[in-house]
């Protein structure tokens, strides 16, 4: 390991040190949640600064297994902001339930380093380890509320299915390694390009390896029909953690998809395109249809997050199906990931804020009369839900519009997919707006006084709101960054 290598991975090291620092601070000042949060935010700030500085000079370290390019920087900054917001939203929910904030923050930061590792890795083995580092803390967080049976049940389901899918992914990876002789992403792409060109045969073992890897990844993003773990894990987890689970592991898994399917398996895109089209169509349609029937807001948002996975897969399919090789699909996917992260975290933060008083459920009835009881939270929730629906001028509108435009540009079967996206967005409006109707047009059955929320929660909500609105009015800045990231992934 040379000094240059160390500089290149310094954001990752800073992330790991942040996690360690929170633990040490908690050891010195036990159970002081404000100090733990402050340590975490300072550490994340340093990590973000290092990411931006290192990102100025695209570089490759560790013999080509770790790469810093525009995509790495884009995703790293996104991951850091997701984790910072989750940590800010946490204490309002955790402290009344006597759950420790320091451990929460530490485990989250570990998960972030895993996601950052995925974004930077150009080696299949490092990719797998990054995936493990990202999802392992997720299992722990899902079971964070130890005395709650639902939390434990969701965690066990998530853990078992998550470990199986990791094992399936690793099994496929072993076959790909055995038959291409390399784990480097660019060398795998070269070997597969030779297969596509007809210079080498596609052996059944290699095809099986690729199929297993696809299955493993589909589990991680919770694409239909690999989504069964999602609703239970999401509903059982403490609400701020549900928000986190629906965002970071999902965007992180899409980072894996970009590195794996676009960079390593890019030469085979004609072959995996049909699979992606079917996955995308099934995922968004089933996610939305089941979300329609839910009367628990957390469970509804869990199914809607499945639907959003489908929209993002459309972006991937639009890139693979574009005959002229335009990168608009990947650009749209990256933009969607960022917009989705902020609006979804915001929506979950409002649900968590309502549950500040212990014993309050996340059923739809909790939201009745919220607009009158706590007008500010009601208005913010409405904004996030409108953005999730995709109504202008919010971030969600441009995110969906970009996906649809990319799919229409690609033409062919992608046009049908674009139509399915539009139909799904219309169906989704029903269940998102139903919450708004409950908040402003129904009266609460029991009179509950308004809660007081901490400054941390309000500042986090302000950040989510600002990003949701700003990305709606001025999407071009983020679009340009996403474009540069897509360019780094697919040169030419």
């Amino acid at each position: 390991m040379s000094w240059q290598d160390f500089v290149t991975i310094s954001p990752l090291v800073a992330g790991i040190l942040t996690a360690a620092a929170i633990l040490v601070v908690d050891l010195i000042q036990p159970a002081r949640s404000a100090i733990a949060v402050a340590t975490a935010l300072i550490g994340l700030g340093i990590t973000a600064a290092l990411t931006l500085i290192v990102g100025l000079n695209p570089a490759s370290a560790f013999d080509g297994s770790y790469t810093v390019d525009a995509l790495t920087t884009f995703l790293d900054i996104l991951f850091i902001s997701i984790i910072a917001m989750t940590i800010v939203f946490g204490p309002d929910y955790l402290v009344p339930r006597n759950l420790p904030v320091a451990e929460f923050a530490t485990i989250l930061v570990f998960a972030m380093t895993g996601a950052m590792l995925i974004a930077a890795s150009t080696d299949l083995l490092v990719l797998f380890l990054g995936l493990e580092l990202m999802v392992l803390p997720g299992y722990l967080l899902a079971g964070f509320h130890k005395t709650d049976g639902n939390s434990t049940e969701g965690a066990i389901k998530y853990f078992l299915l998550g470990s199986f899918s990791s094992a399936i992914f690793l099994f496929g990876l072993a076959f790909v390694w055995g038959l291409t002789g390399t784990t480097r992403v660019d060398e795998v792409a070269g070997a597969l390009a030779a297969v596509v060109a007809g210079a080498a045969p596609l052996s059944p073992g290699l095809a099986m390896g690729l199929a297993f890897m696809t299955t493993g990844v589909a589990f991680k993003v919770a694409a239909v029909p690999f989504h069964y773990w999602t609703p239970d894990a999401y509903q059982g987890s403490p609400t701020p953690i549900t928000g986190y689970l629906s965002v970071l592991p999902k965007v992180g898994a899409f980072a894996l998809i970009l590195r794996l399917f676009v960079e390593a398996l890019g030469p085979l895109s004609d072959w995996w395109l049909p699979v992606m089209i079917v996955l995308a169509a099934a995922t968004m349609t089933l996610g939305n249809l089941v979300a329609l029937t839910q009367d628990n807001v957390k469970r509804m948002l869990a199914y809607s997050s499945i639907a959003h996975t489908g929209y993002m897969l459309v972006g991937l399919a639009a890139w693979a199906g574009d005959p002229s090789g335009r990168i608009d699909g990947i650009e749209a996917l990256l933009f969607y990931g960022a917009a989705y992260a902020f609006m979804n975290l915001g929506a979950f933060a409002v649900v968590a804020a309502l549950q500040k008083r212990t014993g309050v459920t996340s059923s739809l009835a909790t939201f009745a009369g919220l607009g009158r009881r706590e007008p500010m939270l009601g208005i913010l929730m409405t904004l996030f839900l409108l953005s999730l629906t995709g109504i202008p001028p919010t971030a969600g509108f441009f995110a969906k519009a970009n996906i649809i435009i990319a799919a229409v540009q690609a033409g062919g079967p992608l046009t049908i997919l674009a139509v399915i996206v539009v139909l799904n967005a219309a169906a989704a409006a029903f269940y998102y707006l139903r919450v708004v109707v409950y908040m402003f047009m129904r009266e609460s059955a029991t009179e509950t006084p308004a809660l007081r929320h901490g400054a941390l929660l309000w500042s986090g909500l302000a950040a989510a709101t600002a990003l949701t609105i700003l990305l709606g009015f001025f999407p071009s800045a983020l679009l340009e960054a996403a474009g540069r990231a897509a360019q780094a992934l697919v040169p030419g």
Partner: protein
Amino acid sequence: MARRLVPIILALAVIGAVIGIAAIMLVVLGQDWEDALFWILAAVMLGAGLLVVTMRDIIRCGLAMMVCFGALAGIYVVLGAPLIAAAQVIVYIGAISVLILFAIMLTQTKDAPSRLVFQTQAVPAAISAVVIAVVIALSIGATDWAEVPERIRLATDALSQVLFNDFVLPFEIVSVILLAAVVGGVFLAKREPGGPS
């Protein structure tokens, strides 16, 4: 009593079938004794694995799993990877199996049954497992493995060279994963003040 014998008969049948295939392979196709050893170990591993999932007493399942791990270590030796075989014996048979038996011993109470409670979808699971196994076997059989040259010699010195040069980044990341797992594991296992003891 007859119900108890079903898994054992099933396992013996699998072992017999695999050894039968091995015998045919040896006699008809003229394979050498190294292959015979592989087939015997594979038969033991499959039979033990079957016992792990079909037997009803969890302690016997744990013991069958140790046999399964041991047979796998033997297969590593046959494949020429003594270091991995040693690690398999030390880590899996030595540490993990004992941990599992300890966990069973410490968590069992008199009123909780040691019967397995998760076997509600055994038949569909068995069918899909067999289908997937057949698909994997067919595609492995159809793959031209001769085209793959021998890449890494798994001797200890070569392995350490690879581990600490080419794969130093993954090696270090594994330690971070373990740290995260330890932090979370301690949190989950820690007894809450006032919680259930």
